[in-house]
């Protein structure tokens, strides 16, 4: 009996020890990735990166056109996707609460949330690029906007649902129509939560590469025209990292470092905000 108990205790100790090791391994991978990014990307970080455009192989240059393109397309994507996402979430949480249609929409939205982003790129290619006849920044922004929608719908609905219904009832009791209640009472009350959702969406699309490959394409030069191909960090990183040129590879690491830092800071910010204002964001897969 005692031997059996000892055996069971040994098994427990081994299994729990292994679970600790698994955790260490997971953390080690994150540390390894960050360490590599810093050790290889930090060296190339200079003012040149923010003042000069992407160079030809072998000559010096920076990433400013790619950074500019990424900012423009990301913001445009947010401008397209976030309002639609918040409106749809408003329907799910306010007008359509409990409706059968809402259940279906919520389900489809969750599926879109995990859909491969490259497929979104193909979709926008056949819809926008083929219609316009050429690659363009606006096509890139639309594909990012499509990725923003499900992320915002999911977070915004969670946040709107947190607003106590007593607030809505008080507003209705004063004679306000639902739309006035929503825009003047519910939205302001959920403001920080909605902002958290938008931040998460921003973090999600900042590093997206696949949907830009054949929508925005890339541009070796400075271009601010929305109906022309536009440089962007992720595609430049992809192109430069897979090239045989040393200076291109070095710029790719610097770009990767910039993007990762930006996304990690955003994620931590969003997480802090949602800890303060809402449910934990582990509900957003």
């Amino acid at each position, binding site marked *: 009996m005692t031997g059996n108990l000892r055996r069971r205790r040994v098994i427990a100790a081994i299994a729990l020890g292994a679970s600790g090791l698994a955790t260490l391994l997971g953390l080690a991978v994150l540390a390894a990735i960050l360490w590599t990014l810093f050790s290889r990307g930090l060296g190339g970080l200079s003012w040149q990166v923010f003042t000069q455009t992407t160079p030809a192989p072998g000559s010096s240059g920076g990433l400013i056109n790619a950074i500019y393109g990424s900012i423009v397309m990301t913001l445009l994507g947010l401008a397209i996707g976030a309002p639609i996402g918040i409106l749809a979430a408003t329907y799910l949480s306010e007008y359509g609460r409990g409706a059968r249609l809402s259940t279906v929409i919520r389900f489809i939205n*969750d599926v879109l949330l995990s859909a491969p982003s490259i497929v979104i790129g193909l979709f926008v290619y056949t819809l926008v690029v083929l219609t316009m006849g050429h690659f363009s920044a606006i096509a890139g922004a639309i594909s990012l906007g499509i990725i923003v929608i499900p992320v915002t719908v999911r977070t915004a609905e969670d946040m709107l649902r947190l607003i106590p219904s007593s607030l809505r009832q008080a507003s209705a009791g004063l004679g306000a129509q639902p739309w006035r209640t929503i825009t003047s009472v519910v939205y302001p009350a959920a403001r920080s939560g909605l902002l958290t959702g938008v931040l998460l969406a921003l973090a999600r699309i900042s590093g997206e590469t696949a949907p830009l490959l054949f929508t925005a394409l890339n541009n070796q030069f400075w271009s601010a025209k929305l109906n022309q191909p536009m440089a962007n960090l992720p595609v430049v990183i992809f192109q430069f990292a897979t090239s045989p040129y040393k200076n291109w590879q070095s710029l790719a690491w610097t770009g990767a470092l910039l993007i990762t830092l930006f996304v990690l800071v955003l994620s931590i910010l969003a997480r802090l905000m949602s800890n303060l204002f809402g*449910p934990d964001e582990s509900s957003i897969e």
Partner: protein
Amino acid sequence: MSAVTIPYKLQLRREARSEHLFRFMTMAAALLVLALLAGVLLALLYGGWPALKTFRFGFLTSTIWNPVTDQFGALAPLYGTVITSLLAMLLAVPLAFGIAIFLTETCPMWLRSPISTCIELLAAVPSIVFGIWGLFVLAPVLQHTVQPWLIDTLGDLPAIGKLFRGPPYGIGLLTAGFVLAVMVLPFITSVMREVFLATPRSLKEAAYGLGATQWEVIWDVVLPNARAGVVGGIMLGLGRALGETMAVTFVVGNAHRISGSLLAPGTTISASIANEFTEAVGRLYTSSLIALGLLLFVLTFIIIAAARLLLMRLEARGAHV
């Protein structure tokens, strides 16, 4: 104020009109979510139609991918997609299980939140960063240590030996599986953690009261109780792995062929599209790539929909997943 200057009835009518408009806008936005899904399907079907019409079912069964003779079959990328994703699951599921157990059972309270934040930050790292890291850091390590070891120890075994033969390229299906495993790890972990946390306290305490060790409580009480959620989380991770693009494109080797060895370069659906789409010349070539996209979309849709259905049913029972 306007209420004083505008007749009361007029204002009421205005409010009613705004109400209609706002309601219509939210409804339209919600329906747009449905339209998006339908739109993606239709667009891919339209774009892939020439290829599907030309090759019919042969598209799914042919391994030939030849832009010169305009012959395209999806079997090699489909094989690569499935193999790399399964490899990723094989590696990531036990790890995720371990981490979730650690975070819910053994970890000191004050460490739980920082560690789970770090694990979830892995999910925020952009896919392209995993790709560049996989190509320049992980692949050389695998090539010089792990792969030679696999070839030496497993390569001569009768049945599974075939999987571990050939030269260690560094890049290939195995490396892609490794990178994918790291990428889906946080998703699976977070679902498992949530469902483990949802185990009723009374069940665990009853088991402890009967003299069970901590591990026995986990294995015989927590895990069976969370079974549906665990399966849902794994399938969610699988859906991610199937569709992941950039990281795989860096490390899979991009060779359109099916070789028996896991060490050999291959390709996946998403990597083929990412690599070849902008360079594809000719209607049939482009169309075949879009048809590949359709195949990927349908595949992931089925997996993700099943996972979501499972998790939704749990959510209805009160677990916050």
